[in-house]
C-alpha cells in the first residue's frame, strides 16, 4: 500500500523538483538520487510481493501480480542506471554545446515524468489509466527527442508524436470497446475497466466486441512496441534523441507497451476462446523480425541500427507470446527482461563511443578497443549478447522460442532462421570494425560511466546461466496467466 504510494510519488515529485532546480551543477546527481529512491521503492514493493503475493491498493486501482512485478523492478532499475549513465554523458554534451541550461532542465524533469508514466502504466489496474499513462509517456519523451533542435531531431520528434499519437488513439478506441463489452457484464461503474475484475469475467465478454477491441488495442499499443509496419517512428526517434533517451525508449517504453498488449491479450483470449489474438501477434512478430533484419543490413548510423535491432527483438517476443504455452510465454518474459538490460547497456556504450568519435556514422568509429578497452568490450559483449550468443540470457529465451516454434509452427522457423542469420551478419559486420582495428579516437573529458554497462551485461549473463528461483516462479506464474 505505502510502497505503491512511495513508488509513484517519488518520480511524480521528482519532475517538478528538477524543474525548479534548473540547470544547477548538482541536477544530474539529484536526478540519480530520485531514480535511486524510486528503485529502492520498487525493491520494497517487490519484497512485499515476494513476501505476500499479489498486492492491490487504493480500491483496487493499483495492483501488482507476477506479470508486472518484475517489470516494475526492471523499469526502476534501468531508470536508475540510465540516470547514472546520463551524468557524464550530459556533462560532455553540455561542454560540446549541444545541451544548454534550459534544455538540461527540461531533460531532467521530463526524465522523472517519463519514469512516473512508466511506473503508472505498469502498476495501474485500470485499463483506462493504462492508456492515459502510455499517452503521457509519449508526451514526456517527445520533447526530449527533439531536444537538440536539429532539423533531423525535430523531424524525428514530429513523426514520433504523430504516429504514436494516432496509434494510441486507436488504443483508446479499443479501450472504449473493451469498456463497452465489460459494461454489459460488470455494469456501468468504475470497476468495469479494472483488469482484475475483467479477468474474472473474461469468459463472459462478448467475442464480437472483444475481437474488434483487441485489433484496435493491438494496432494502438503495437505502434509503441514498434511492430512492423507501425514501427516507422522508432528508428528516427532512437537515432536523433540523446542516447539516454534511446536507452530508456528501447529498454522501458517498448516493454511497457508490450505489457499493455499482453494484458489485453489475456482478456481477448478468455473471451474469444480461439487463437485469434495469438495468431495476429505471431503474424506481427514474424513480420517485424524479418523486416527489421533486412533493415539492419542497410544501416550506417549506429543508434539507428540498434533501434532496428529493438524492433527485431520486440518482434521475436511478440511472436513468442503469440505462440503461447508455458514455455514460449516464459521465454517471452525472459526475453523482455534481458533485452531491456542488454539493449540499454549497448546504448550506454554506444553513447560514449559516439561522443568519442563525434559522430554516429559507424564508418567513422573505429578501433574502440584501442582507444578505450572498456567501452570497446562493453559494446562487443553487448552486441554479442543481443545477437543471441550464449551464455547471455537473450540466447536462453531464443533457445526456448525457436525450439518451441520448430515443433508447433515449423512454417515460421525458416523465416526466423533467415532473420536471425541476416541480423547477425548485418550487426556484427558493422560492430566488429568499430571495436577492433586501429583508431584515431581521443579520450573523453569526463570519465565515462561504465559501471551500468557491465552491471547490465552481468545481469544478462546471469540470466542465461542462472535464473533466481523467485524470478523463475514469477515468470512461470505469469506464463500461466498468459495462457
Amino acid at each position, binding site marked *: 500500500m505505502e510502497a505503491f504510494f512511495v513508488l509513484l510519488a517519488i518520480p511524480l515529485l521528482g519532475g517538478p523538483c528538477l524543474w525548479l532546480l534548473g540547470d544547477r551543477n548538482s541536477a544530474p546527481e539529484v536526478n540519480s538520487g530520485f531514480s535511486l529512491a524510486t528503485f529502492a521503492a520498487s525493491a520494497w514493493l517487490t519484497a512485499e510481493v515476494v513476501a505476500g503475493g499479489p498486492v492491490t491498493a487504493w480500491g483496487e*486501482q493499483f495492483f501488482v501480480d507476477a506479470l508486472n512485478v518484475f517489470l516494475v523492478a526492471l523499469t526502476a532499475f534501468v531508470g536508475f542506471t540510465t540516470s547514472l549513465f546520463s551524468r557524464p554523458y550530459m556533462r560532455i554534451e553540455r561542454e560540446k554545446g549541444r545541451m544548454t541550461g534550459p534544455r538540461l532542465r527540461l531533460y531532467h524533469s521530463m526524465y522523472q515524468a517519463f519514469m512516473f508514466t512508466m511506473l503508472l502504466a505498469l502498476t495501474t489496474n*485500470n485499463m*483506462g*489509466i493504462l*492508456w*492515459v499513462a502510455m*499517452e*503521457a509517456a509519449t*508526451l514526456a519523451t*517527445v*520533447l526530449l527527442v*527533439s531536444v537538440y*533542435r536539429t*532539423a*533531423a531531431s*525535430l*523531424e*524525428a*520528434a*514530429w*513523426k514520433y*508524436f*504523430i504516429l504514436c*499519437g*494516432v496509434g494510441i*488513439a*486507436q488504443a*483508446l*478506441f479499443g*479501450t*472504449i*470497446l473493451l*469498456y*463497452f*463489452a465489460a*459494461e*454489459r457484464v460488470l455494469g*456501468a*461503474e*468504475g470497476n*468495469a*475497466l479494472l483488469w482484475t475484475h475483467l479477468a474474472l469475467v473474461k469468459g463472459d465478454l*462478448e467475442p*464480437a*466486441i472483444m475481437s*474488434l477491441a483487441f485489433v484496435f488495442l493491438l494496432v494502438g499499443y503495437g505502434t509503441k512496441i514498434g511492430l512492423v509496419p507501425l514501427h516507422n517512428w522508432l*528508428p*528516427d526517434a532512437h*537515432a*536523433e534523441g540523446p542516447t539516454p533517451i534511446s536507452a530508456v525508449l528501447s529498454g522501458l517504453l517498448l516493454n511497457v507497451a508490450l505489457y499493455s498488449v499482453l494484458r489485453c491479450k489475456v482478456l481477448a483470449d478468455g473471451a474469444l476462446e480461439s487463437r485469434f489474438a495469438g495468431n495476429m501477434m505471431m503474424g506481427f512478430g514474424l513480420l517485424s523480425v524479418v523486416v527489421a533484419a533486412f*533493415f539492419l543490413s*542497410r544501416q550506417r548510423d549506429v543508434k539507428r541500427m540498434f533501434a532496428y535491432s529493438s524492433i527485431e527483438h520486440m518482434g521475436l517476443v511478440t511472436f513468442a507470446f503469440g505462440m503461447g504455452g508455458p514455455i514460449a510465454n516464459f521465454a517471452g518474459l525472459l526475453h523482455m527482461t534481458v533485452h531491456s538490460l542488454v539493449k540499454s547497456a549497448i546504448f550506454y556504450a554506444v553513447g560514449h563511443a559516439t561522443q568519442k568519435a563525434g559522430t554516429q556514422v559507424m564508418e567513422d568509429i573505429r578501433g574502440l578497443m584501442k582507444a578505450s578497452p572498456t567501452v570497446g568490450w562493453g559494446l562487443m559483449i553487448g552486441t554479442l549478447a543481443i545477437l543471441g550468443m550464449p551464455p547471455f540470457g537473450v540466447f536462453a529465451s531464443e533457445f526456448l522460442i525457436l525450439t518451441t516454434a520448430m515443433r508447433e509452427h515449423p512454417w515460421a522457423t525458416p523465416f526466423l532462421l533467415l532473420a536471425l542469420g541476416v541480423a547477425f551478419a548485418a550487426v556484427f559486420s558493422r560492430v566488429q570494425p568499430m571495436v577492433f582495428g586501429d583508431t584515431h579516437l581521443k579520450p573523453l573529458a569526463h570519465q565515462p560511466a561504465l559501471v551500468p554497462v557491465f552491471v547490465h551485461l552481468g545481469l544478462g549473463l546471469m540470466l542465461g546461466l542462472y535464473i533466481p528461483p523467485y524470478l523463475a516462479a514469477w515468470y512461470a506464474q505469469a506464463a500461466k496467466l498468459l495462457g
Partner: protein
Amino acid sequence: MSPLVGQVINLFAAVLLLIAFAMLAQRRIVTLIHLFALQGLALVGSTTTVAFATGQHHLYWSAGITFALKVVILPLILHRLIRRLNVKWDIETLINIPTMMLVGILLVVFAFNLALPISQFSQSIARGTLGIAMACVLMSFLMMITRSKAVPQVIGFLAMENGLFFAATSATYGMPMVVELGIALDVLVGMVILGVFMFQIREQFDSLDIHHLEKLKED
C-alpha cells in the same frame, strides 16, 4: 427512455459524420478550425442529451470539459497558432477531393458493417452511434494521411479524438471519470506540446510544410 432522445442522439451523430465529411473536403485551414469547433459542439450536445436521458451526472462534467476544451480552448489556440504562423491556406491535398470523398463513403460502409453485429449488444439508446463513431475515427485518419501541412494534420488528429469521445459517451455512457480526466489532460498537454513543436518546426524550416520532414529515411 423515450425514442425521441434516441432520435436526437442519432441526429447529433449524423451531424458529426457530416462534419467529418466536410473536413475531409475542406481546403481552408480557418474553415477547418471552425468545423472542428462545430464538431465539438455537436459532441457536447450529444453528451448532454445522453446525460439528461440516463441521469448519469458525471456525463455533465464530461460535456463541460469537452465544451471548454474542444469548443473554446483548442480552437482558440489553433486560431492563435495560424495567426502567429501566418498560415491560412492548405491547398495541397495528396489525393484529389472527389476520390477522397469516395474513399470516405467506402469507409463509412465498412465501419457500419463492422459495428452492426456489435451494436445489438448495446444497452444504450442509440445503437447506430458506434458505427458512426468508428467512421469518424477512420475518416479523420484518412484526413491526416492526405494532408501535407502540419496544422491540418493536427486538426485531423483532434477530430479523431472527437470521434473517440463520441464513442465513449454515446455508446457506453462515458468512461469512468478518472479516465476521462486523464484523457482530457493528455489532450491538453498534447496540444501545448504541439504548439511548441509548430514553432520549432517553423523556426527550423521557415514553413509548416511537412515535406520538409522527410529527410530521415532509408535510402
